[in-house]
């Protein structure tokens, strides 16, 4: 027989699927726009929140000292422009309820012995409680409050006392960050955003790319060809690896140029981590598409995956602050490990030699998800 078909032509078959996917991707303007716009828009939104130092934050006060000194201390807080006194609480309970209910960002307590202690030089204290669920909102205000004692009362203090100020401030602001004891810094958000954006777009895009074939009926032709499941998977995912790398570059360049996020090094860990994470997200999308029957289902399942990725990965809440069960779930989510890699490498400059456990976790995820996808991939129309 003079036929040209060979059984070991898998590279060509992968190329077939890859080239087709790539062309389809370039024809699909909407997807194109999504690939580029999502990272840019998200980063700008979040980045703006980072750079912006929100002022005039609602503040409740509990003033138990009616002295002039307490009043001018309060005025000094208002003068920083970070604090707007919106509520005057009559009791500790009331103050606490205001903060807990999210009605105010800060709760400020000036204790009854405030001016007496200052006068005696006994180390007076003011308690500033911050709702730090959103650290970027409170960070600048807290810094401003910390600088207050050195100057707030300068002109109120009579000669002898005023002379003492340079050495030890007349009072101290005790800050309690509530709901976010680690006080994640704003810089942490950008690397986290890298993980969230990548999984959001990549998982969804691959999940759609296979269900689209089922919905449009092209799956029947594809299944009638000699292409093997793993070849289809590799061919379909490869163009999106490029997409993921493109997005990563956009995000990192923007973070560095616009928001001066430090790039401390650890490039080996970062590059390997990004590759593993992109592959894992794509494989997961492929797995979803083997389960979902329609594009709508694929979309819903992708969103469902995004929830724990955002909430339990350490992106939103500090990982060690989460209850044990949440940490257990978090460990199974690739974003969690990816965040450790990115924060470790970009912010602290750590390399593979310290971060490798996270890479191993990502690698295991890729293998398990790929295996599941291959098991689930329907080779017939049954």
């Amino acid at each position: 027989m003079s036929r040209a078909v060979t059984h070991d032509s898998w590279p060509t078959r992968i190329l077939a699927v890859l080239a087709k996917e790539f062309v389809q991707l370039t024809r699909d303007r909407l997807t194109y726009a999504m690939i580029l716009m999502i990272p840019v828009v998200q980063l700008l939104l979040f980045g703006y929140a980072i750079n912006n130092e929100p002022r005039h934050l609602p503040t409740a006060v509990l003033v138990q000292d009616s002295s002039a000194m307490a009043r001018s201390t309060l005025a000094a807080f208002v003068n920083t422009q970070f604090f707007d006194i919106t509520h005057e609480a009559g009791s500790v309970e009331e103050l606490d309820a205001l903060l807990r209910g999210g009605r105010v960002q800060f709760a400020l307590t000036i204790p009854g012995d405030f001016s007496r202690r200052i006068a005696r030089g006994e180390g007076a204290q003011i308690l500033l409680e911050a709702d730090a669920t959103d650290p970027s909102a409170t960070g600048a205000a807290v810094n401003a409050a910390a600088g207050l004692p050195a100057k707030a009362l300068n002109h109120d203090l009579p000669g002898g006392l005023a002379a003492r100020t340079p050495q030890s401030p007349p009072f101290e602001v005790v800050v309690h960050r509530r709901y976010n004891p680690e006080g994640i810094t704003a810089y942490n958000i950008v690397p986290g955003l890298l993980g969230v954006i990548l999984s959001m777009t990549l998982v969804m895009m691959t999940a759609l790319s296979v269900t689209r074939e089922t919905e449009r009926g092209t799956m029947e032709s594809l299944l009638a060809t000699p292409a093997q499941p793993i070849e289809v998977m590799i061919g379909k995912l490869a163009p999106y690896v490029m997409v993921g790398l493109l997005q990563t570059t956009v995000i990192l360049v923007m973070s560095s140029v616009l928001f001066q996020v430090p790039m401390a090094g650890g490039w080996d860990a970062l590059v390997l981590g990004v590759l593993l994470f992109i592959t894992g997200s794509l494989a997961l999308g492929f797995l979803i598409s083997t389960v979902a029957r329609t594009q709508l289902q694929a979309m819903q399942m992708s969103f469902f995956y995004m929830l724990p990725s955002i909430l339990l990965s350490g992106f939103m809440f500090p990982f060690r602050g989460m209850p044990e069960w949440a940490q257990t779930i978090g460990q199974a989510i690739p974003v969690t490990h990816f965040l450790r890699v990115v924060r470790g490498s970009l912010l602290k400059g750590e390399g593979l030699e310290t971060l490798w456990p996270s890479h191993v976790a990502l690698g295991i995820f890729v293998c398990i998800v790929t295996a599941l996808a291959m098991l689930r991939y329907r080779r017939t129309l049954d």
Partner: protein
Amino acid sequence: MSTPLASTNLAIDVQGLNKSFGDKHVVKDFSIQVPRGRITGFLGPNGSGKTTTLRMLCGLLTPDSGTGKCLGFDIVTQSDLIKLHVGYMTQKFSLYDDLTIEENLMFMARVHGLDRRQERVKDALDRLGLYERRKQLAGKLSGGWKQRMALAATTLHEPDLLLLDEPTAGVDPQARRQFWDEIHALSAAGLTVLVSTHYMDEAERCHDIAYIAYGKLMARGTANQILTKVGLVTWQGEGPGVDRLSPEIAKLPGVEAAAPFGLTLHVSGVDAQALDAALQPYRHAPFTWTRTQPTLEDAFIHLMGQSEDNYR
């Protein structure tokens, strides 16, 4: 070469195929032998299980029971090999709307691991008159062009067997004709073709016919063999208003089918005497009755009636 391909002159040889979807028994005890090199028409009303059968033959569906070979390969365990040597054209267009004709063909050439891909794609484009349109998106083509492109894609890897599922449905008569010329050309080059259709005129363009109704194979053979085997007697009635008598005549004993053909009426039955008796009241002016050759359609209507009886 002692591949299974060469070891038999049957392209398809399956026994007792069954397939159900849920509690719907779609294909029942289906057995068929298709010799190499012939064009076999696969006929039957909508929903009779043609698509399901074709899918089982090329490994896209797994039969619930039954065994068989396609090109000498087992249809259950060797579907990978079958896919290399079979060209399956789906009923619903299933190539990529957002790729051009050329890109679609190139995809097929690659996915089959062919050599000389540029050359083969160009040949296929030329042969089916698609070259001028090669840069057009498949989704923008009209039905006839889509079908040609699908045929080009199905034959690109030089298959030994073509399974065509209603390839000319919704295509204009001229395009249908060209399509059939192409099928005959492929057959002349040695391909075996199994083509499903429900156009009667297409049935007559096939060497062989297999008729399926409600999942059961009802008749098999050439058109003449089927007509002989069914043994219908058919009268053709002419005269004003004769076609409107069909509901009335159809109910008479001995009449199996009464179907208007334009202004004439075809009345068929297997029992010549009973049929005569039934028509007696109508043998007067303005009607004239003549014995005529039953058409395949008459035969199929009869067969369908039989299978309905079985179905109940």
